[in-house]
């Protein structure tokens, strides 16, 4: 889980992004217990306070929840994760489309290029 950070962007926002991807991709599954703040901080090699801040944000978005004295868990609401995935995919798609637009290619062409990609 080693990741690199861009010092130009608040670290907790970058941690939040990584965490979202972990939830979307199922690295941490719905209802699963999460590692402790300390463990996360050690793997990401960040300050525990910064990690805590990212987790608080995630909790504010209802994507994770705290069970008193027991630690943090991924939400049991699978629809919420689906919605997050949907939003994330849309952001990526829009960003791709914008890039294509900048070089003068429309939607039809953009899709054509996508189809040409070998998986």
């Amino acid at each position, binding site marked *: 889980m080693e990741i690199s*950070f861009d*010092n*130009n*962007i*608040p*670290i*907790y*926002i970058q941690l939040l992004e990584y965490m979202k991807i972990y939830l979307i991709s199922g690295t941490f599954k719905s209802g699963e217990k999460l590692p402790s703040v300390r463990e996360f*901080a*050690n793997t990401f*090699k*960040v*300050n*525990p*306070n*910064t990690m805590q*801040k990212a987790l608080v944000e995630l909790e504010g978005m209802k994507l994770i929840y705290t069970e008193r004295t027991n630690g943090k868990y991924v939400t049991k609401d699978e629809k919420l994760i689906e919605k997050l995935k949907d939003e994330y995919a849309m952001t990526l798609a829009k960003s791709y489309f914008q890039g294509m637009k900048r070089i003068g290619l429309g939607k039809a062409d953009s899709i054509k290029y996508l189809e040409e990609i070998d998986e």
Partner: protein
Amino acid sequence: MSNIKLLEIKNLNKSFDNKEILKDINLSVSGGKIIGLLGKNGAGKTTLIKLINDLLTPTSGEILINGKKVGVESKKIVSYLPERTYLNKQMKVSEVMKYFKDFYSDFDYDKAEKLLKDLDLDINKPLSKMSKGMQEKVQLVLVMSRKAKLYILDEPLGGVDPATRDYILDTILSNFNENASVIISTHLISDIERILDEVVFIDKGKIVLQSEADKLRNKEKSSIDEIFRRTFKC
């Protein structure tokens, strides 16, 4: 929980030969934080650190550690890495470790031994037979192996290569406990900024900026390193 700050500096001034080195410094640090004390060479960082460690006497103002004036008591809970070594270089690392064990009741010998091993440092070697970088690593390990409340590291990254810098940052991160705080003075900001909670910019003996690191990045839309360069452009 008490409201006593781990470190509280009030209206601190320091002059040498009528020259003001530090002017009206006010700073308070609570537990569990990593603070970057950032400034150019000659800004007053080391003078401030020496005052906190009771190695210099303030011209006016006061410094409280855990609510008490600095002195013998505060030294028991402050672990200090000086900019220049004060260790006898003829001593072997193992001898220095014994010295630390005798001197500081909070020194964790086993932890130091483990960290030195991780860094491939031979404890049977005298410091004089080690490179500058190796000596710096030994010192940092010794300082971080104390179970102190406040760690003060004056330029801990100066003489070491980037790979070792990362190891040192990890060592700092994984070894400070929840109630302790770390103050790191440096001008190598880009290497260190990701682990900082707060930054304090010091220039010409004054604190010119104090902020949470992420708040500052958010506000200025750039890295602490970039903000520092902009603020102190020559």
